[in-house]
């Protein structure tokens, strides 16, 4: 049986409700050097969060909360784990801010569908008992260190001398697909590359490795505390620099042969 929710006068449709307030991402400007700056807005006062929601309207967080709730109920084994909110955030943002109003109406089911699919691929990161297994977060962090050791031995050595363990930073990086490390527009750009990876989520590990290498000079100079603060609050960087570095790390030979090829064609 199918009940059309919209027909119930006492319970207004969600579609209408979804559009009633806006979503906002950080305001970014990209200058000619390709460096993204984001304009800092005046922080909201605490009471400004108490936006009055009229009868029949719903705040975005309520929609997101419902998606997470249903996911938890459908997946009692995993249930809700902190960090899933960070995964659904960018997905919901994309759908709920679609330029086409018609599309926007379906933000909730669309983001639910995508969230379910995405979670089916990354849920192992959220399961404690799998931490040390071959599919869990532990092995991903190990992989990150293996790649770093192979591609930048000096940095790897320095991090291990500083006792800066991957659990201290890359646990979060990997679990929530780097969604907490960059401004939202950069996260969306980054996720495009992550989702385009046929070996999901192998590229993620290369991105993490690239993030370390991009700030290697600062990390090499630093001591434990300064390095820890750096990787915990990743400095504002053009996301494309990181992505290019990650590509280079993943396919070092391909890249090299391209360069050689270009050279040989010039001469």
């Amino acid at each position: 049986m199918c009940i059309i929710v919209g027909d119930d006068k006492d319970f207004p449709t969600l579609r209408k409700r979804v559009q009633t307030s806006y979503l906002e991402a950080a305001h970014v400007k990209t200058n000619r050097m390709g460096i993204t700056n984001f304009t800092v807005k005046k922080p909201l006062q605490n009471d400004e969060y108490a936006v009055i929601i009229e009868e029949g309207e719903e705040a975005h967080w309520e929609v997101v909360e419902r998606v997470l709730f249903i996911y938890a109920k459908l997946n009692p084994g995993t249930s809700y784990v902190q960090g899933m909110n960070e995964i659904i955030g960018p997905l919901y943002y994309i759908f709920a801010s679609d330029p086409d109003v018609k599309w926007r109406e379906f933000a909730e089911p669309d983001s639910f569908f995508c969230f379910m699919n995405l979670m089916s691929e990354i849920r192992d990161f959220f399961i404690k008992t799998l931490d040390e297994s071959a599919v869990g977060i532990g092995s991903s962090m190990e992989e990150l260190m293996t790649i770093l050791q192979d591609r930048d031995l000096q940095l790897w050595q320095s991090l291990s001398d500083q006792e800066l363990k991957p659990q201290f930073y890359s646990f979060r990086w990997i679990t929530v697909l780097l969604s907490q490390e960059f401004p939202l527009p950069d996260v969306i750009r980054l996720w495009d590359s992550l989702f385009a990876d046929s070996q999901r989520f192998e590229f993620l590990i290369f991105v993490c490795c690239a993030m370390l290498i991009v700030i290697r000079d600062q990390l090499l100079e630093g001591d434990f505390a300064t390095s820890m603060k750096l990787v915990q609050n990743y400095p504002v960087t053009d996301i494309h620099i990181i992505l290019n570095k990650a590509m280079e790390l993943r396919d070092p030979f391909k890249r090299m042969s391209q360069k050689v090829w270009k050279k040989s064609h010039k001469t």
Partner: protein
Amino acid sequence: MDQNQNCHKNNEFLFKVLIIGDVAVGKSSIMKRFAENVFDRKYGSTIGVDFKTKKLKLGGKAVKLQIWDTAGHERFRSITSAFYRGAHGIVLVYDVTRMETFTNIPKWLQELDLQDYNCTVKILFGNKSDLSSERDVPRETAFKYADSNNMFLFETSAKTGNSVNEAFEHLVSRMLVAFHEAESTATKPILSGDLSTCILSEQEKIIAGSGCSC
């Protein structure tokens, strides 16, 4: 960890402090308030661990704190327990408006015992004390519990800043005492899990600065 930086400076101490407690009791807000003196109610949940440093002077001694703010969610327990290693001070936080966060404190203590960090300095924070109308944990109950477990209790509010600095200063002074006592009794055998017989490892002494031989 950075063992060398403070090595040549006398009277400079470096302590590692860990903040633990249930989900949404205000661990991150407490750290933010103490380290940066700000409060923002929209902080998200902590994934794994967060890290900040804070310098302060206490009784003529310069103290550097490395503050580790851990995730409260059960899922992160296996990862957060790895951070307990080498902690000099533990801040246990509960929420005065939610009884279950207080009744879980013994579980957190057990967790610490499992890690064999009996001798670190522990302190209890009853956070969100500004929400007096929503109070669920009576002051007397909490203070009685803290007393019987040899811990100091501060009712704090990360939102207003009430008692946060005092509580941390108290923790630091106790860590300094523990350090000096450990130094003077370092050669004696440990008879009990009591704080006074707590012995900091050789490495930690170097970290703390004054046990330095170079």
